[in-house]
């Protein structure tokens, strides 16, 4: 291999007759004057000047010509030349000497570039692409630290140098973005991140609207030593069942957001909530106020004291309350209809159990350095999460601020933690609207670093994510992305060059570029095989086949006992078959299934003097 053509202080071309270049591999240029720079291959080419591209000027070199030359010992295909475009890693101030020899590095020569921290100190996310040939030289602590997963789903051993993310540097460069279209391996990557957080016992809160964050099942085919057995490292909570809102701690704005779950409140309704809700209101007191105000507005007589005074002191007290409420709020809350709307919505949330449990259990999990997984219906989860994030973030902030101020009695310790969510653009949508979720996400994006609160935001649509938030994601895992708008955002927000962004639409599932202020350059990574399996990993079409095959098998087993099966007096069998199948199946349905089995070649139709009858096909292959 040698440097050819024109070089610059950043780029050069390398040619080789013998060897094909591997995209992203790192090579050493033997140019003493520039201290033997390391270069990364960013584009590869092979060509054969004797088998040129067929154009109007170059004819096709027919196969017979190549065969004719091969017969006398000349393999024209071997005239192939390989060419690589490579980018200098780091900075040099003068161009590389043309003609310099180029060689593959030993691991020790590139270890500094590839591995910054040991697997014990960082998150092991995958292998660095282009380092496959270094695998044999890996020191013991870097060898066999992960498994890979082929596109077909089978597990293979580690091929390449592991990419280990130095999470401690998030102190300087906080927050991670995970971007990629559906099927790009983004969810897979997110799972890997979660597993690594659990291994390192970094507390976190992950939203799980799809009920897929379960870590109890090992990845099928994974060798035993790689399985992550971590039942005590995570806890699953469901909004409205074991986790909810402490109503007393709600701000009015949060209450408006909660009530607006599903459909935003009208301006009148929101105004009414702001008017009626007071700090430290309990669910009871707030809902009583609303209900009584409705009553008072619908029946003004209730606010009046009977002339001559009521006997019943309780009644009098009630009337006093109605009067008080309508005087305080009556003119400022719109009509009774508005209030009734608020009341309905409040009831609906209460029915969902949102107010029955607080956030204490989640806080306990975070304190115990666990990953808290929050499940619930998508819309509710989003509103709820805004509340939860704000609450936990403030606890952490208050503690740190107190420590900084050197308070005599600092707040109770609350640990740093990570917030993980998929479909993050729903939380912080680019644009003018400022829902509670966006405010808190943006606040953490901008200030979380100081308090050790980090975000891991995944999204299919980086272009839809709020700009401020996007700019704060100092590390980005970018999987296959097809949309031009998203690629444009990625171009703006990362150091990915035109070669890399050009490759984005074609990345294999599970391959990603990791662009990080921590590593300083974008690194192509093959994400490792997850240690645990998602409960939803079965292809729904496989499921369809599997389920219907199970049904068919059962039918076949039952029907076999009734062969030969005459179509002319099938009614005789009907009841027995129904019983055995445990299902009401009509005579026609049975016939139809029989015809299908016959069409598949599993049964045979035999003509008898009375009509047709089905018999078992000889040598039929029973599944």
């Amino acid at each position: 291999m040698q440097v050819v053509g024109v070089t610059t202080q950043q780029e050069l071309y390398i040619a080789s007759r013998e060897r094909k270049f591997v995209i992203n591999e790192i090579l050493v240029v033997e140019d003493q004057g520039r201290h033997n720079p390391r270069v990364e291959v960013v584009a590869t080419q092979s060509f054969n000047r004797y088998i040129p591209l067929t154009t109007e000027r170059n004819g096709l070199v027919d196969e017979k010509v190549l065969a004719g030359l091969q017969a006398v010992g000349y393999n024209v295909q071997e005239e192939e030349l390989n060419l690589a475009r490579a980018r200098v890693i780091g900075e040099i101030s003068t161009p590389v000497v043309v003609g310099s020899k180029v060689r593959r590095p030993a691991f020790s020569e590139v270890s500094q570039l590839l591995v910054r921290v040991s697997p014990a100190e960082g998150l092991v996310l995958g292998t660095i692409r282009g380092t496959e040939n270094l695998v044999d030289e890996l020191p013991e602590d870097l060898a066999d630290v992960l498994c890979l997963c082929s596109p077909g789903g089978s597990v293979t051993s580690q091929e390449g140098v592991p990419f280990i993310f130095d999470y401690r540097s998030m102190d300087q460069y906080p927050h991670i973005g995970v971007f990629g279209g559906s099927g790009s391996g983004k969810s897979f990557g997110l799972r890997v991140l979660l597993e690594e957080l659990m291994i390192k016992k970094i507390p976190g809160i992950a939203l799980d609207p799809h009920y897929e964050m379960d870590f109890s099942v090992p990845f099928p085919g994974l060798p035993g030593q790689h399985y992550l057995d971590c039942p005590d490292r995570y806890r699953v909570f469901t909004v409205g069942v074991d986790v909810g809102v402490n109503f007393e701690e709600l701000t009015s704005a949060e209450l408006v957001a909660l009530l607006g779950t599903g459909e935003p409140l009208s301006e009148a309704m929101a105004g009414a909530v702001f008017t009626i809700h007071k700090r430290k209101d309990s669910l009871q007191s707030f809902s009583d106020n609303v209900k009584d105000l409705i009553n008072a507005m619908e029946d003004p007589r209730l606010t009046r004291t009977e002339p001559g005074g009521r006997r019943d002191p309780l009644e009098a007290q009630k009337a006093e309350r109605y009067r008080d409420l309508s005087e305080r709020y009556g003119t400022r809350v719109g009509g009774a209809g508005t209030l009734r709307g608020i009341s309905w919505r409040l009831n609906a949330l209460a029915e969902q159990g949102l107010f029955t449990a607080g956030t204490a259990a989640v806080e306990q999990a975070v304190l115990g350095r666990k990953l808290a997984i929050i499940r619930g219906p998508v819309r509710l989860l989003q509103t709820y999460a805004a509340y939860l994030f704000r609450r936990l973030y403030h606890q952490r902030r208050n503690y740190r601020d107190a420590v900084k101020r050197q308070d005599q009695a600092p707040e109770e310790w609350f640990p740093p933690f990570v917030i993980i969510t998929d479909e993050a653009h729903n939380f912080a949508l680019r644009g003018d609207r400022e829902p509670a979720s966006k405010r808190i996400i943006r606040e953490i994006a901008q200030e979380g670093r100081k308090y050790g609160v980090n975000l891991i935001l995944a999204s299919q649509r980086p272009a839809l994510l709020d700009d401020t938030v996007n700019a704060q994601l100092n590390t980005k895992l970018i999987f296959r992305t097809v949309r031009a708008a998203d690629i444009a955002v990625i171009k703006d927000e990362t150091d990915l060059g035109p070669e890399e962004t050009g490759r984005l639409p074609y990345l294999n599932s599970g391959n990603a570029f990791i662009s990080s202020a921590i590593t300083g350059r974008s690194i192509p990574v093959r994400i490792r095989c997850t240690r645990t399996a998602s409960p939803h990993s079965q292809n729904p079409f496989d499921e369809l086949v599997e389920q219907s095959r199970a049904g068919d098998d059962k039918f076949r087993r039952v029907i076999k006992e009734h062969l030969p099966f005459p179509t002319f007096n099938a009614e005789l069998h009907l009841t027995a078959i129904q019983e055995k199948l445990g299902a009401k199946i009509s005579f026609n349905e049975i016939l139809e299934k029989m015809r299908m089995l016959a069409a598949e070649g599993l049964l045979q139709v035999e003509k008898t003097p009375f009509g047709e009858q089905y018999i078992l096909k000889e040598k039929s292959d029973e599944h």
Partner: protein
Amino acid sequence: MLLSNPVSDELKAINLALRKRIYAKEEIRERLARELGRFCRLSHFSQQEAREWAGGREVAAVDGSVNYLGALFPYILCIFRALARTTGGDRTAVTEVFSPLLPHHYRELTDLSREQDLDNELAVNIVKERKLVAFELQVAMETVVRKSPRLVIFDGGFVRYERHAPEAWSRYRQLALEKEIFSVGLIEEAGSFGLGRELNLAHYGNPVFDRELLLGLMEPGECFLVDFERYVKKPAFYTAFARLSRNPQAVAFDFFKEQARYASGVLNYLYTITPAGGRGVPLLLDIVDAEARISDREMDLLLEAYLDVEVRERFFAANRLRRDL
């Protein structure tokens, strides 16, 4: 561009005159077949047939090239290069730089011009031809000795070798015949007029060249084999013609008279290794040609690297290259 009437009129007249010189294809074919030889169809060798034909031996191709610097005698510099390459990848190359500015080269030249009674400038051309031919034969010889290939393909007719290096040529010929090495000289632009002469074709005393007759005369994959007892060029050679691709211009092939009976086998093989859509030259010869040639760019780089600017400017730079228009 402005063309005055006389020029266009003259061109029209020439066009008319030349049109009269175009013979009817059928007539020429018929006469050739009747008087001189026969048309045959070539066939592609299968890989197996090619292997059997080669008998485990390789095929070699020989080519030479010359690059010039400067234009005005004696301010010239030539780089000669000859290359023989076998299909097994064996390469033999010779390179020499020649310039009349150097005393010993100048003497070589003046000796020749005195001997042949020529101007120095014309003698340069002869020296060039002689050297090129000598180098080509040198690499061919080495290859033949070392590799004993089945076939050696020369770029150009045999007449050149015989004229400019008769001794080396005869040594080569002897060795090739001894070792049963087929040799073929491929002439892309057939400058011979043997066919026209044999057919008694002439145009007001002007000979009719073979290439005129051959254009479009044959179908792709067809060849014209002259009867063995007839010769169209020199008694020592046997010449055949073939159209190896869709390109309408046929190519001429020189064989040793002694190997004439192997001509159709060799032609079949050459047909096999010629791209059907190309210019009708076997791929191997094109490959060797590309390797032997020093491209203009390489030439510039060489000269820039090894000649000082002053030397280049003082001795070789042509002022007309500085023209802007």
